[in-house]
């Protein structure tokens, strides 16, 4: 057993050496047209050796390491705490939610423009995560191409404004509805698929949308994207220094205050906040409605659900459509915030991040997802110096999370419908 361990460890160390030495230990240098190979500095060689030693030690004593990791949960102070009573927690959660919203309402007037901008992005991610939560958390359909609907929302606004001069308020419902339509259309072919297969097909769908946007140069401008997307207006009042469209007035003139670039940012933030709150409330309501129960029933046991007369088609399509609808919302706000969009913004990584938010927060749990969205969006900004390691930190956080709390930060507690005692 032990000898076997050492053999395995030695093998791993040698593999480490073989892989890392040519990559890190040898440098290619160009001399005119020739390329010569030179050795790297001694410190690099030492680092490679050290890495091999670390790999060896870890592999050799792997069992004891992993055993120690298994005991780590005991370090977690929350482990032995008894879960709060159901009704109490529900109440507490609604209070926290209300508190967050009130705080968020006044907060932008006291902080810098950059922070408000970031907060708007957080709100967009909250909308996205809440929408995906319906599909993944409630209906249990793993969707890896969610960003496609986000893109549809954003591009709807961009194209409508580019070709038809539509304003934000026209584009908002249009973007959401079109995204919902795409959700419906995607839903049909994937109805029969489950789990891994579904994930792959949705992944493909996400990429198709992105590649389509990238290559349909006539319409979308391809990789150059679309710029000049207008800011939202408040009852026809624009937030720019000068009015762009005839007939409109500008915000600062109407109210007789000095022009400030911050007005626009704060206004957009408030729109995003209102939309995020609407998203949260609507989905919360859905969860208690027959359609929400049907999603969960289908997730829990599809065969039983069908035997009780639930149509798989209707239930899955409704989840896809509603999830996509809110992604469309978020996309419109995003387009307006950036003023410029290109397919770059809708790569697979976005889908992965949104999914990570849902998983980290706790599938199906709204407050958890909101907190996770805040954490995942803000942390990389705070740790700008480490931006290269952003993904590494992210990965490490995910691993630790799965070891300690596989159910997410705030696992979902279902909002039970209580049966009142009969008199």
């Amino acid at each position, binding site marked *: 057993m032990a000898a076997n361990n050492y053999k395995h460890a030695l093998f791993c160390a040698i593999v480490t050496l073989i892989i890392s030495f040519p990559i890190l230990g040898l440098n290619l240098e160009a001399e005119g047209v020739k390329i010569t190979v030179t050795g790297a500095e001694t410190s690099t060689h030492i680092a490679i050796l050290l890495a091999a030693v670390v790999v060896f030690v870890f592999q050799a004593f792997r069992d004891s390491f992993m055993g120690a990791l298994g005991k780590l949960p005991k370090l977690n102070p929350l482990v032995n705490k008894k879960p709060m009573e159901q009704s109490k927690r529900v109440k507490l959660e609604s209070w926290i939610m209300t508190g967050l919203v009130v705080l968020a309402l006044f907060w932008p007037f006291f902080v810098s423009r950059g922070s408000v901008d970031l907060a708007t992005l957080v709100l967009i991610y909250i909308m996205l995560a809440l929408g995906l939560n319906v599909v993944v958390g409630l209906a249990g359909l793993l969707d890896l191409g969610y960003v496609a609907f986000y893109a549809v929302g954003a591009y709807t606004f961009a194209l409508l404004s580019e070709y038809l001069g539509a304003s934000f308020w026209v584009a908002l419902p249009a973007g959401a509805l079109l995204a919902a339509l795409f959700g419906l259309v995607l839903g049909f072919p994937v109805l029969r698929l489950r789990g891994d297969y579904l994930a792959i097909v949705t992944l493909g769908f996400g990429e198709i949308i992105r590649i389509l946007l990238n290559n349909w140069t006539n319409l979308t401008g391809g990789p150059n994207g679309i710029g000049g997307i207008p800011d939202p207006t408040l009852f026809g009042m624009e937030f720019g220094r000068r009015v762009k469209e005839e007939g409109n007035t500008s915000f600062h003139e109407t109210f007789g205050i000095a022009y400030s670039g911050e007005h626009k940012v704060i206004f957009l933030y408030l729109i995003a906040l209102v939309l995020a709150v609407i998203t949260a409330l609507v989905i919360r309501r*859905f969860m208690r409605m*027959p359609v929400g129960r049907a999603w969960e029933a289908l997730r829990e*046991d599809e065969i039983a659900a069908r035997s009780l*007369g639930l149509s798989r088609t209707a239930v899955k399509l409704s989840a896809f459509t509603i999830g996509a609808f809110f992604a469309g919302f978020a996309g419109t706000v995003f387009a307006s915030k950036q003023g410029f969009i290109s397919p770059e913004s809708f790569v697979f990584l976005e889908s992965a991040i949104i999914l990570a938010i849902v998983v980290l927060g706790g599938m199906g749990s709204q407050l958890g997802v909101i907190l996770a969205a805040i954490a995942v969006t803000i942390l990389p900004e705070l740790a700008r110096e480490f931006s290269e390691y952003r993904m590494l930190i992210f990965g490490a956080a995910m691993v630790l999370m799965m070891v300690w709390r596989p159910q997410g930060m705030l696992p979902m507690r279902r909002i039970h419908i*209580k049966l009142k005692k009969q008199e």
Partner: protein
Amino acid sequence: MLEVQNLSMRFGGLLAVDQVTLDVQEREIVSIIGPNGAGKTTVFNCMSGFYKPSGGKILFEGKEVQGKPDHKISKLGMVRTFQHVRLFTQMSVVENLLVAQHRHLNTNMLAGLLGTPNYKEREQKALDRAAYWLERVGLLELANRDAGNLAYGQQRRLEIARCMVTEPKLLMLDEPAAGLNPAETKELNQLIISLKEDYNVSVVLIEHDMSLVMDISDRINVINQGRPLASGTPEEIRQNDDVIKAYLGEA
């Protein structure tokens, strides 16, 4: 009300069900018995729309239903339970019953979001019906528990209640007594009889517990290796030589 004519089901080279014929009249309890692997559950799966039968007809109230999707069949009023209990374990007991009443509810999303009177009224009715059936199967005290936390016998009863809130005309029970102790089996026995007597439901029953089958069945169909072996009243089946040989053992 239910007629199964020459039903066959083939899986590749295996003929799991071969020319099975049975019928169920209104307010009748009909049992299907047979050794393990005889094809009883396959017959159920064909009847409830999980399988598309390879041959034969299934008539429910005069209409052909073979090959229809399962959720449509259950909407017609044929609802089944499962050999292994299939509850929505993370949902509460009462929610299990609400899901089952999906088609009785106002599922218009706008109505739900706005909370229209019609929506509320139907939601309340569903809760009332759920409460009634929970009381009926003796689970009212546990209404707000997670269904997964119930004891096995309670889960079985909840599954039957979940079928009954859909207001079926025909109830298909797949080994409802499996895993129950004698006292629980007795309760089940009374429950099934009362479903027939008080709620005018016909019952098709697959069961291995002979005392239960003989007690409550109006008629019994015996299947052996996919083929019908005999059918008749419990008394006739008890004395049928073929059945005794194939199933009860030569005594």
